[in-house]
């Protein structure tokens, strides 16, 4: 019975109900989109790192997961190659192209030994020092074709030599030596990828390398790619918390206004319920159920809208952004919406619960 009253009350003011649901859904979408972007971008980076086909990665002593600009001497590659069970090793140099993309300098011949090389969908390997390779995602995004001159990568012009299937290390690849020279990093690399003759010996080889390169970060690719999480990106978690706090605030304000208006509007009805013997808890229960229903409906709409933002970000905007759908966050975002909404309903709910029946019955 009480549920029927709750539903009928919400249906009685459809516009107010709809606006409340939409406002809550925007809050849910905001959280899901941010989390989805974080997860999508990190997953994509991890996937590309796994696509290299290496067993071990060696990085400079102070580098972090997303900061790859700290370099080390390329001579280390020779040392690594000389270790037992190392089948191939290659150093790459990375240079930030824009906020979301890196240009990677590599020796294609060495890189091919790790994984058989890029699978080209158009064109082919470098023909000269000023050639660039891009993956098909980047090419489609910028409408690039093989043979065209590409500008804006590390402040100079390049000839697009080939377009390869995505999912392998980088979106933009240039010859290692060229990138070393134009960025004043001659003889330096950012990372070294190591392929073993037997992947089962990964831990053993890492232990040996750690003895020789004690200050360097040496990890298995499995461990390295597992580091691509929100926790590994400086300030990302804090940023997500800020967005969540904003979400709770939005939910609080929307529901507060909506329920406060509803309580004022229904003063006489609250008086009637009290005259019938409804306790303050009964009245509060009605308001809280209405709020919970708004939050659930808003959460469902918010989840659906997060698919719309994913479509817009991944397929329409082409901003090198990847949004994933993170199912566990459906529950978290819905819980955030519910908490914000219930907080917003507390004051109007208590006002209704404490309403004097006689005053309420004489309210016009």
């Amino acid at each position, binding site marked *: *019975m*009480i549920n*029927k*009253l709750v539903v*009928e*009350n919400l*249906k*009685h003011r459809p516009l107010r109900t709809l606006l409340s649901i939409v406002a809550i859904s925007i809050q849910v979408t905001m959280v899901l989109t941010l989390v989805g972007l974080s997860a999508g971008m990190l997953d994509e980076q991890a996937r590309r790192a796994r696509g290299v086909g290496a067993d071990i990665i060696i990085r400079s002593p102070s580098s972090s997961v997303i900061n790859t600009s700290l370099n080390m001497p390329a001579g280390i590659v020779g040392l690594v190659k000389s270790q037992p069970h190392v089948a191939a090793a290659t150093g790459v140099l990375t240079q930030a192209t824009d906020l979301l993309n890196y240009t990677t300098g590599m020796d294609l011949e060495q890189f091919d030994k790790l994984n058989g090389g890029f699978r080209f969908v158009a064109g082919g390997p470098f023909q000269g020092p000023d050639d660039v390779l891009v993956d098909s995602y980047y090419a489609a995004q910028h409408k690039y074709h093989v043979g065209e001159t590409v500008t804006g990568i590390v402040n100079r012009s390049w000839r697009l030599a080939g377009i390869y299937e995505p999912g392998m290390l980088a979106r933009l690849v240039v010859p290692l030596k060229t990138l070393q020279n134009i960025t004043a990093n001659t003889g330096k690399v950012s990372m070294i990828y190591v392929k073993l003759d037997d992947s089962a010996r990964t831990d053993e080889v890492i232990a040996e390398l750690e003895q020789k390169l004690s200050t360097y970060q040496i990890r298995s690719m499995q461990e390295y790619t597992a580091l691509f999480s929100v926790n590994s990106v400086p300030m990302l978690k804090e940023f997500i918390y800020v967005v969540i706090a904003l979400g709770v605030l939005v939910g609080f304000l929307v529901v507060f206004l909506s329920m406060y208006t509803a309580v004022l509007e229904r003063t*006489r*009805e609250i*008086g*009637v*319920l*009290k*005259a*019938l*013997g*409804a*306790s303050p808890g*009964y009245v509060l229960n009605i308001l809280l159920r209405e709020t919970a229903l708004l939050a659930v409906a808003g959460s469902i709409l918010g989840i659906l809208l997060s698919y719309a933002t994913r479509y817009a970000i991944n397929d329409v905007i082409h901003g090198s952004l990847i949004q994933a759908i993170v199912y566990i966050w459906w529950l978290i975002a819905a819980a955030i919406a519910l908490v914000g909404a219930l907080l917003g309903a507390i004051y109007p709910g208590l006002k209704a619960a404490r309403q004097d*029946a*006689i005053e309420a*019955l004489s309210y016009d």
Partner: protein
Amino acid sequence: MIDGPIISIRDLRKTYRAGEVEVHALRGVNLDIQRGEFVSIVGPSGSGKSTLFHIVGGLTPPTAGSIQLDGHNLLGLTDAQRTELRKTTVGFVFQKYNLLPTLTARDNIEIARHIAHQQGPLDAKFADVLKLLGLTGRLGHKPRALSGGEQQRVAIARAIVNHPAILLADEPTGNLDTENSTVVLGLLRDLNQRLGQTILMITHNPEAAAYGHRTVRMRDGRIE
């Protein structure tokens, strides 16, 4: 079943504050109402009728005196105890009907049962009451689709669905035309006669008051 009056009021007083002024709404009311009686209370505005109505209905506590309602002493009851009393011991009918606008007539009746923790289908006896009230074909409608007379009949059904010891009616025909007033008053008398429902009705209208077994007149917070 308790012997003696269903309502027994002795030296009942109610004082409340309106701003900085103390208002003595009841100044020593004495009244007995027998089980099955239909009593009309008349009096000018400010005579204390509504205050007495609210105290008997458990909507507000008295300041002093004694009031026994179906074995319950209303003096000193907590808010929660008065809330409990309203669930099953008292039924209200108001001048403005006061149906919940979002619910159908049937659900307006059902919610009174729900609040009183009554479960299961309506009993056959109450189905007869609905027939008597002429509501059988109108239960699926919301208040906005019902005439004033129909709304007041739904309010009467809601007031007695939990078989209260007493039905309190505050100007039940105040918003109705003559024809509907006659119908509603006739129904109250029928309920009193057929079901033995005790009724306490407040009214300004002497013709309406005449439907009761007796009329009590109030003036200046006392019964004349």
